[in-house]
């Protein structure tokens, strides 16, 4: 019988990403309810040293698959390695991040293992021994409870939603052969171009300062950059601002942009269209600064200021600087 709650840990450049600890913490909670073990699949080349970090967040056993071909993520390399160990050990639950890599891998695995997957889950629980995942549908206009009928039950978890909880366990390392020797992968990463903003990606940011059409021009974002500097935040944008060419596509928040869950989302000159809300309504706190008291963003905001953002934002920056110094 399928047993165990497993995660696929995510590492880049031999450093674990925060989502890995979020996954481990959730897996620990589910495994304790089931009275089962937490397993973590860790793939890469020269990554054994990361196992103790996973143990710290509740992982009982680390399944380590190493091969030079796994040094950087490719769908085919990683799907092959994960499918091999999962077929051998038969875990009941497999959790991945709903990150760029996790989305790509989890859906390919659903195909490879012929099983069900709940994407971008914001809550997971055990009911009668089975995993029930809650996830937004229709751009967050509805929430669905999903049951995976087959094993392993796969869910991908939205980054930045689940708390990281320390809970040290053994984290015994069990090496396995990912079965890649002699195979040629069908995909190859030719180039990695890193962003140079020096700020965290929107999907991983704790604080986001976001601007819309109300910013008036690309130069308008200067005041948001200054606020972001003070708050250690990342700057986001509405689609209107991206389509106007004021900000790059990667900054877009919403249904056709990124889905973000920061602790704090500050929306400046953004009306709060349903497609924008789809990308940010799982933020823990939302602030809105808009001169139109009727703007729908205020219905979602914890704190709102009805006024000209060009007057409010520089003052907010000054005040935050004072409080944080």
């Amino acid at each position, binding site marked *: 019988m399928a047993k165990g709650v497993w995660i696929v840990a995510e590492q880049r450049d031999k450093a674990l990403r925060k989502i890995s600890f979020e996954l481990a913490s959730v897996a620990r909670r589910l495994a304790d309810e089931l009275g089962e073990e937490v397993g973590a699949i860790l793939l890469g080349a020269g990554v054994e040293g990361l196992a103790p970090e996973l143990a710290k967040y509740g992982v009982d056993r680390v399944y380590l698959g190493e091969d030079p071909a796994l040094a950087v993520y490719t769908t085919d390399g990683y799907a092959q390695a994960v499918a091999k160990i999962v077929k051998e050990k038969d875990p009941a639950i497999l959790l991945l991040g709903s990150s760029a890599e996790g989305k790509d891998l989890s859906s*390919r695995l659903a195909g490879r293992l012929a099983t069900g997957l709940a994407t971008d889950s914001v809550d997971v629980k055990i009911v009668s021994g089975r995993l029930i995942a809650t996830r937004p549908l229709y751009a967050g206009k509805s929430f669905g409870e999903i049951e995976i009928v087959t094993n392993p039950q796969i869910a991908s978890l939205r980054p930045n939603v689940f708390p990281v909880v320390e809970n040290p366990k053994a984290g015994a390392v069990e090496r396995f052969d990912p079965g890649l020797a002699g195979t040629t992968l069908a995909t190859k990463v030719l180039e990695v171009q890193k962003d140079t903003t020096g700020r965290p990606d929107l999907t991983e940011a704790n604080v986001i300062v976001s601007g819309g059409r109300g910013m008036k021009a690309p130069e308008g974002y200067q005041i948001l950059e200054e606020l972001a500097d003070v708050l250690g935040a990342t700057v986001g944008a509405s689609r209107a601002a991206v389509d106007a060419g004021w900000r790059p596509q990667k900054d877009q928040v919403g249904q056709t942009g990124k889905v973000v869950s920061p602790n704090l989302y500050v929306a400046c000159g953004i009306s709060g269209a349903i497609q924008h809300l789809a990308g940010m309504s799982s933020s823990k706190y939302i602030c809105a600064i808009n001169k139109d008291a009727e703007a729908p963003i205020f219905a979602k905001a914890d704190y709102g200021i009805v006024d000209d953002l060009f007057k409010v934002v520089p003052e907010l920056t000054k005040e935050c600087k004072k409080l944080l110094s």
Partner: protein
Amino acid sequence: MNIFVCVKQVPDSETQIKVKPDGSGIEEGNIKWIMNPYDEYGVEEALRIKEKKGGEVTVISVGPARVMETIRTALAMGADKGIQISDPAFDGADAYAIASALAAAIKAQPFDLVLCGQRAIDDDAGQVGSILAELLGIPQLTVVTKVDVEDKTVKAIRPIEGAQLLIEATLPCLITAQKGLNEPRYASLPGIMKAKKKPVDMKDAAALGVKPEAKARIIRLTPPPARAPGKIISGDDPAQKAAQMARLLREEAKVI
């Protein structure tokens, strides 16, 4: 080049979504149906590749009779022919079942490239493309913003957290489209006229030899969780209001 584009018909993103009282699904009464926006990028990219390389573009959709409109929209944009897969067996089907139907239809002829949207804006799942690639036994390049098709390979740009990757895959290959890939064209009037005469092949589950078996099930839909009502910070002085907001963020919310 034989190019297939998978297009899904979805509720317009402005549509009010009302959950049925028993939570079993949504009320379909007042919905305006459109082509999934990401699939428009897929259709556009397929047409551009065909314009450069030659070949044929086939659009496929799984769904009830109404999905013919979406197929015709793609044909009006310039696709050559369509396949409509309609069968009550696919009502409420999960991603695996949809991908199985698409795979069966595509496998019946030679294919070089398959395009999907990176996700459908109704179920927001982003699963069908990868599952389809797996069932076809071909590599995938997902959520891409630029595609260059060469003789035996495809190069694509894939944005990830904090970086952009340039990835190469061998053909045949499946690509899922992200916003930024292109600017989809509108169907022209002559295009719409021509579309009416383009062939659309009708298939059902039996013809494809697939039998959908649920792997994931929606137990219940609910309206989104309500957010506690917020505070509008009152006053006339922007500086004072800003100071108040900063204080609340620091002392009440404790997020800065």
